[in-house]
């Protein structure tokens, strides 16, 4: 994160370039906004840590991920082996991709509970159009993206036009989209062998440094890079942050906040369609029962990545780190012979710790 990256200690009131108060205009008795340097209460190490984490939102997740990797690498010999690294990357690809959409929605102080349902519906549309209607792969995929876009328009339209809370809107559409998915698929899984190979391409691999990497993982990484660019380097990204930070302030600043919100839900819908394509490659099928856990997993990744559920704060890189952390944690615990239920237990604990940390960091003034 570069833009909001301030030297963390600038907060303590020392502006390196300026011996401020006695500047060239010292003749004026009361300079605008001149005030005594904020009482520097000789920052304790804890306060300094708070400032540092406040200024660098992705530092925490990065450290936690690194620690997890070091711990599991020392506990299990298999953890760092190429085959296992490849496995973690594949496991993270779908949730990571979806979490990109979830992140931009949460940045606007919203939440999307329909992630999994949109993904499953679009994957079924892609699979069915290819396997049963016999449409060419790219056309089937394009139709899937159109469905994702429509889902995003519906969510965003309800949030911006009817002014309903995103939680309620997406709780409703979660059920609607999932029911449509069961109806359209007739609750039957579509086998990958019946589909165009284009749909399965995301599951194919190439090898780097003895590690097999799926194209789906690469798509995910490219998506993160692209979204990172959009959020940091474009006006749209600034407006997403401003809208989530304080929607009324953003509106008074001349930002069309409804338009920003709608665009966020539409982009998220397209991102979920991308996730659906990656899912088809990963499981070599389109299953109407897939994606049940994705809703909460994406929120977990976003929260662990240091993005605030209250909006306006966070970074897309954090979400990648958060998704990787969940993948590493589950995989490492599994390798250590820990039961799945205790993996969930551990993820749950980390989510609560992450949100508690976020509250603590934001209390900084």
């Amino acid at each position, binding site marked *: 994160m570069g833009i909001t990256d301030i030297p963390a200690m600038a907060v303590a009131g020392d502006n390196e370039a300026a011996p401020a108060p006695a500047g060239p205009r010292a003749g004026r008795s009361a300079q605008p906004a001149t005030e005594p340097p904020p009482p520097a209460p000789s920052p304790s190490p804890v306060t300094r840590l708070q400032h540092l984490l406040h200024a660098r939102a992705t530092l925490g997740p990065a450290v936690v991920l690194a620690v997890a990797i070091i711990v599991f690498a020392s506990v299990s010999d298999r953890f760092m082996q190429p085959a296992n690294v490849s496995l973690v990357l594949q496991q993270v690809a779908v949730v990571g991709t979806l979490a990109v959409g979830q992140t931009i929605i949460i940045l606007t102080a919203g939440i999307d509970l329909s992630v999994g349902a949109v993904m499953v519906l679009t994957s079924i549309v892609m699979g069915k159009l290819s396997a049963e209607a016999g449409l060419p792969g790219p056309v089937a995929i394009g139709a899937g993206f159109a469905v994702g876009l429509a889902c995003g328009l519906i969510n965003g339209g309800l949030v911006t036009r009817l002014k309903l809370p995103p939680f309620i809107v997406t709780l409703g559409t979660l059920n609607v989209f999932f029911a449509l998915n069961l109806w359209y698929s007739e609750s039957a899984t579509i086998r990958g062998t019946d589909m165009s190979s284009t749909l399965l391409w995301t599951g194919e691999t190439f090898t780097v440094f003895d590690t097999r990497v799926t194209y789906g993982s690469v798509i995910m990484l490219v998506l993160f890079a692209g979204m990172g660019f959009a959020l940091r*380097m474009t006006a749209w990204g600034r407006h997403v942050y401003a809208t989530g930070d304080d929607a009324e302030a*953003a509106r008074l600043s001349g930002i069309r906040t409804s338009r920003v919100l709608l665009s966020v839900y539409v982009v998220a819908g397209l991102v979920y369609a991308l996730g659906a394509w990656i899912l088809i490659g990963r499981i070599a099928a389109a299953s109407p029962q897939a994606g049940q856990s994705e809703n909460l997993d994406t929120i977990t990744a976003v929260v662990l990545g240091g993005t605030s559920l209250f909006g306006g704060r966070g970074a897309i890189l954090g979400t990648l780190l958060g998704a990787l952390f969940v993948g590493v944690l589950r995989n490492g615990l599994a390798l250590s012979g820990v039961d799945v239920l205790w993996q969930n237990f551990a993820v749950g604990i980390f989510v609560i710790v992450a949100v508690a940390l976020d509250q603590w960091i934001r209390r900084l003034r």
Partner: protein
Amino acid sequence: MMPSDSTTLDAAPRDLADPPVLAARGLVKRYGPVTALGGADFELMEGEVLAVIGDNGAGKSSLIKALSGALVPDEGEIEVCGRPAHFTTPVDARAAGIETVYQTLAVAPSLDIASNLFLGRETRRRGVLGSWLRMLDHAKMRSEAARHLNDLGIMTIQNPTQAVETLSGGQRQAVAVARAAAFGSRVVIMDEPTAALGVRESRAVLDLILEVRGRGLSVILVSHDMPLVFEIADRIHVQRLGRRAGVVTPASHTMTDVVAIMTGAAPAPE
């Protein structure tokens, strides 16, 4: 002068050939059974600081919102430099050279100073990066932000990449004023700029207002802070019961007189 009369007191002599930089006639705004504005008039001359005062519910906020485009009046006309203007959003008013510093400041706390100064009118890079990739010119916006802050004599803020939430109340106010002064070409509206500030920071805001006027901008100052109003205003618009009760000057009336007009205890100046 009668409240409905739109001529101003001769306290502030003006050249009749010069229309007010911002004027309103007969503004009406109703919220259901409540009449917030009941035919309010308003006139702001070029280069003056006009204070707008009034009791709670006198329609100050609605008047200011109408003038800044945040509210569309049900009836009435607004003129900018003698030409009719129709504001439906704050963007329209901004395009006419009218900038507003809201009481809430309307800043995004988590964004840095430069991003806040340019919020909603970001500068893009030149060439393909800007036109095709829509890439922002962060370097230019930062240097411009630093220049604007310096122009206003805000020396305590040195680092335009600092997040606004790390600033003190006075510094945040300064950022909001700098944004208005940087882009406003005619009028800067300041809504209760000292309400949240201590004595020392209020002094600083006063200097800022004078600095803004010194650049030839007209200032509308909405404030409950009577000493501030009497120290800085050229004229005082007294709002009462949704209309303009009258316009006085710090020279012609005392604070007690003005409070009496405000509350209806004394008749408006003829």
